[in-house]
């Protein structure tokens, strides 16, 4: 049995080395998620989108860093805050928007909406809006992978709120016992909706997976190079059959719990929000590394930004112009035929 590992806090810059090509790809992907989500917020505020959405802005480095460490065939499962995971695993902007607008070419034909985007073609087993449920789906997928010898790794993304669900502990126990190839990625944005996680979570987060003998790391989730390198190591061990691993990334959501959560001062301060945006922004951190140590010109970065904006706008145009599903679709897919 492998010993549980805990990395000491603090950064080891050298081990976060990534190639320029990879770094630029991750940069583009983070910018894509950022602009996508900003557009979603705007769609809500201008009453162009049905329902609500839970924005991922601020947490981009986690989805991007982890998915960069995965192959296309590897699985992910996601949550109500899932747009970032879907995009990072390869979903297309236009079809994402189409789903959010309830249109026919959306990933779920308009049936799922923001909280349930699934794209099996890119390994995305779907977003689930029941807290903790993503861990079940991924552990099941890992079970399949092991039984059928597929060599695939399954990643469950979830927030620290999921640590409140008993399901997670049943899953971790079985995953550890049976050495299932699953990586649990806990995005600790520090708030379960409107309550700080310290009021809902006893002890240390990392002690929980460690109790099952699961290899566990807790890192800052804002530097995508760190997330990528850590995930890469864990994924290697998981794929090699060493059993599950657990990655806790400390992070922050810049916006509300959902797009309608505008007045947040009763549960967190403007200063705290400002500090994360100013000092720990994942796009800025990678941008600074690219310009300062890799001699990437600011123009290169703004070109990426501009290209992504165009991609977002044309994706949105596509979605806006797309038809709604045929009304008879309502009865389709209740049972598999």
């Amino acid at each position, binding site marked *: 049995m492998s010993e549980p590992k805990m990395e000491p806090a603090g950064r080891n810059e050298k081990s976060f080395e990534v190639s320029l090509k990879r770094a630029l790809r991750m940069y583009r992907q983070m910018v894509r998620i950022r602009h996508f989500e900003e557009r979603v917020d705007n769609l809500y505020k201008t009453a162009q989108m*049905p*329902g*609500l959405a839970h924005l991922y802005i601020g947490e981009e480095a986690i989805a991007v860093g982890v998915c960069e460490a995965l192959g296309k065939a590897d699985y992910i499962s996601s949550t109500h805050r899932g747009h970032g995971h879907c995009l990072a695993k390869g979903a297309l902007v236009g079809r994402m928007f189409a*789903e959010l607008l*309830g*249109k026919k070419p959306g990933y*779920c034909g*308009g*049936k*799922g*909406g*923001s*909280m*349930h985007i699934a794209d099996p073609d890119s390994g995305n087993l779907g977003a*689930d*809006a*029941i*807290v*903790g449920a993503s861990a079940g789906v991924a552990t099941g997928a890992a079970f399949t992978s092991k039984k059928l010898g597929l060599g695939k790794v399954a990643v469950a993304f979830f927030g620290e*709120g*999921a*640590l*409140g*669900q*008993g399901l997670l502990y049943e899953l971790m126990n079985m995953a550890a016992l049976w050495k299932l190839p699953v990586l649990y990625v806990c995005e600790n944005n520090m708030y*379960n*909706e*409107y*309550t700080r996680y310290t*009021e*809902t*979570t006893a002890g240390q987060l990392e002690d929980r997976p460690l109790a099952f003998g699961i290899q566990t790391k807790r890192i800052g989730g804002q530097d995508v190079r760190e997330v990528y390198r850590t995930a890469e190591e864990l994924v290697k061990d998981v794929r090699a059959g060493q059993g599950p691993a657990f990655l806790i990334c400390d992070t922050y959501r810049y916006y509300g719990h959902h797009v309608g959560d505008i007045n947040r001062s*009763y*549960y967190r301060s403007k200063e705290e929000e400002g500090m994360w945006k100013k000092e720990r922004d994942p796009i800025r951190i990678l941008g600074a590394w690219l310009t300062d140590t890799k001699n990437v010109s600011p123009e290169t970065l703004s070109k990426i930004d501009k290209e992504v904006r165009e991609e977002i706008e044309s994706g949105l145009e596509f979605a806006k112009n797309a038809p*709604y*599903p045929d*009304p008879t*679709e*309502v*009865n389709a897919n*209740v049972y598999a035929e």
Partner: protein
Amino acid sequence: MFMQNNQVNDENMREISFAEAIREALAEEMRRDPTVYIMGEDVAEAGTPFKVLLGLVDEFGTERVVDTPISEAGFSAIGVGSAMTGMRPVIDIMFGDFLPLAMEQIVNRAAKIHYMSGGKLRVPIVFRTTLGAGRRSAAQHSQSLHAWFSHIPGLKVAIPSTPYDAKGLWKTAIRDDSPVIFFEDKMMYSLKGLVPDEEYTIPFGLADIKRSGKDITLVATSSMVQVALDAAKKLEEIGLSAEVVDPRTTWPLDKKTLIASAKKTGRVIVIDEGYEQYGVTAELAAVIAEGAFYYLDAPVRRFGAMDVPVPFSPVLEDQTIPSAEQIVEAAKDLCAV
């Protein structure tokens, strides 16, 4: 004092919203009985996502308005255990869709302990939750699952449709020595209605005639009462007089009032937002068919939510909820006009 709507004297009434009525009932009961407490996710400062409980924590403190981790099974269990030992918990399950996570505690424990103990133990607990689609919240945040609980002996189920009923039924629920599941239609929180200044309660198992008529009976629950009233208005325009009967609790069920109305009009449509298959409408229709068979001029018709997981896209979702137009058509058909 027990009251029905038609006994109310308008002079001593105030107009308040459905949400305010619920808040008032809870506050009054908490003032009256120090063993009453509320527990659930984001019930305290946040006052729940729908803000229904806003302000209660200011009066009663966090000892009695208790925020929990996202642990429905766990805090429901604590609720049951504390109810057995002298407390009167109100357990807040944010969305009815999350009831499955608490199901074990409700069905195998709360519902049965009084009986299993030969009457020695009591479980005076209320599970507070929501029902209803229409918010573009997709399949895991839109269900109306009250039929499940109406099926279980040992549970009582309240499903009010007006501020007046909500307040009166809430007070009865808290005082009841048996477990109650209390369903609030989340689309109804801002609905206004008259509520008396003085204290009142509404007994369980007493239907209310929301509108009297002679040609056809519309039995409607919760979210569907407004739809039925709307249909009744449209029917009046074409010369049909519809009676709207609201059972207010699906269990205990006021069979007498339903049957009496059916006997009077000879034609009945039953409307409820739960799924139609094996749903509340089936039970109500059976009760009426059995009790008023020789008085019926036509078979009882029923409308529930379409038997599909609630889809996200507005063009699909809107079809799944019974509409006034559908009811008008069915009524015309039954009355052969």
